[in-house]
């Protein structure tokens, strides 16, 4: 760890990187200048492909490959920057938006250049009003200095960037729901195929990339693909911002090389609170299955976590110690998915609702043996039966803690409530 230098988060907390002068003095726009004046769009795209960068928004799809799906048929194409961060436990994109918006703009313009997009949108979560204001000011400053807008840096490349703020809906982080929302509709995910690369925004070829992903594009262009590819595991390389929260001493965003162990990441965040023991942790947001003490040496990267039947997701790493009631944790998360289901698919809409009700019942001490039996088998009818990943996110956490702590769930039935008598658990 001592040898790893943060890249995307460099300067945050010490410098006011929203100020374009400060940003310029600290390496700002070097990647943009290099891409637009020394490289062709194809060579920029080739560099990103060679870096093996995988999407930082949750799905981990290779970014270069995503771009390569755009048909070369002369149609107009769009780039949409996904800043609709709402996965519980994740707070990295909001930090990037508020603290280093010019870096997002730079990565976005380089990426639009690589894919030949003349129009870009940034979809900012509705709750991020302050972030959207900071971003608008940064965009105006960048445009005034010709880093954005018409004939950027005197080249033939022009890019119009429109800031679009959402109005409250987790599902709009899913890329096809985001496109629907950007078109002024209900944010209901589309049936795929066709994928957005072929028929996206307004029916035209579109790429949707996460904020953090676009940020790394800038650094890959500046430092070269080999630099990025050499960090971490070969198939899951690069640095990643992990949002660490819950029962640790120093919750926060930590930019770490992928491949770091869960144990080391928890240490980065100051370790557990005094006198507490680890009970469970979620490596990749509310949608990810929990891991436990015996899993602390797992490498934090896409493939190692997938091998443990969980996921890196968006990097929302939530730590639960021995004061946390697993039934209460499962209650908040199943309630979350029930609340956020768009309602299109029956297994997600109805299944999510019944699961949340059963878990709430257990938590309140009104659960039955029958609830436990149903929760043990309902996975088969909910997971893998929906248009988008939201429905598949209802069961992983609940299933993992049910399997690991069956006695805790049973005790809620036997005891008529929580035997831990958990109260606010931070000293």
């Amino acid at each position, binding site marked *: 760890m001592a040898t790893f230098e943060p890249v995307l988060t460099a300067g945050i907390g010490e410098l006011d990187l929203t100020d374009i002068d400060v940003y310029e003095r600290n390496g700002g726009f070097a990647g943009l200048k290099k891409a637009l004046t020394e490289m062709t769009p194809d060579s920029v795209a080739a560099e990103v492909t060679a870096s093996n960068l995988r999407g930082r928004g949750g799905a981990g799809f290779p970014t270069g490959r995503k771009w390569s799906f755009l048909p070369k048929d002369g149609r107009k194409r769009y780039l949409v920057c996904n800043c609709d961060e709402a996965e519980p436990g994740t707070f990295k994109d909001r930090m990037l938006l508020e603290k280093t918006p010019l870096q997002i703009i730079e990565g976005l313009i380089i990426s639009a250049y690589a894919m030949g997009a003349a129009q870009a949108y940034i979809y900012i979560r*509705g709750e991020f009003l302050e972030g959207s204001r900071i971003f608008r000011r940064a965009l105006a400053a960048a445009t005034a200095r010709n880093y954005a807008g018409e004939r950027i840096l005197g080249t033939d490349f022009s890019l119009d960037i429109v800031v679009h703020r959402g109005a409250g809906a987790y599902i709009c982080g899913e890329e096809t729901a985001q496109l629907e929302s950007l078109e002024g509709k209900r944010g209901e995910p589309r049936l795929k195929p066709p994928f957005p690369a072929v028929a996206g925004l307004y029916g035209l070829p579109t790429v949707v990339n996460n904020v953090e992903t676009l940020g790394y594009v800038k650094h890959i262009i500046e430092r070269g693909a080999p630099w990025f590819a050499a960090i971490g595991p070969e198939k899951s390389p690069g640095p990643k911002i992990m949002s660490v929260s819950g029962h640790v001493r120093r919750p926060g965003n930590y930019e770490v090389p992928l491949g770091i162990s869960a144990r080391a990441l928890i240490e980065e965040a100051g370790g557990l609170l005094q006198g507490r023991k680890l009970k469970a942790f979620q490596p990749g947001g509310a949608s990810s299955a929990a891991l436990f003490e015996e899993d602390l040496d797992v490498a934090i990267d896409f493939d190692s976590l997938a091998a443990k039947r969980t996921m890196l997701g968006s990097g929302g790493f939530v730590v639960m110690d021995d004061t946390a009631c697993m039934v209460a944790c499962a209650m908040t998360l199943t309630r979350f998915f029930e609340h956020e289901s768009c309602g299109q698919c029956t297994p997600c809409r109805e299944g999510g609702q019944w699961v949340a009700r059963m878990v709430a019942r257990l938590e309140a001490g009104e659960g039955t043996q029958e609830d436990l039996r149903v929760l043990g088998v309902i996975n088969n009818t909910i997971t893998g039966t929906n248009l988008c990943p939201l429905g598949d996110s209802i069961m992983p956490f609940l299933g993992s803690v049910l399997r690991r702590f069956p006695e805790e769930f049973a005790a809620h039935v036997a005891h008529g409530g929580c035997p831990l008598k958990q109260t606010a*658990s931070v000293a």
Partner: protein
Amino acid sequence: MTPARQARGRELVARYPKAQSALIPFLQYCQEQDGYVTHTAIEDAAEVVGITPGEVESIASFYTLLFKEPAGKHIIQVCRTLSCMLRGAEDLQTHIKRRLGIGHFETSADGQFYYEEVECLAACDRAPCLQHNLEFHYDVTPAAFDSLLDAWQAQPPQPAMPAE
């Protein structure tokens, strides 16, 4: 429709290749002025983007930050999801509800305060957190909430749901 609203509608429509993309920004603009999405705003929006009022209502109903009835001058949204729960959100919620005398989704009798428990606000490192009129407040203990409340009441009136 008022001329000012019509002009704003035209500006927002001009940002996009298709008019309907301006629907949510336009409703946010109307809500900033009226405090919620009024029936008039729904009709105005339908005219601005070229769809029916029924369609506007259906779309608006999808989004939690578009209020369909008067909410309050102070909209208080407290996170209830996992990371905040692990760091005392329930104590904070209990305190706020007692202090304001209202529950989840309720408005105080004088129309000043609206309280809601919401899903993760992406500020888990500073839990428990809340938003007041879309402004973040972090590490909110019950005592810290009381100070915030005093400060909000001393502030000059401002839109509860600013558009931009």
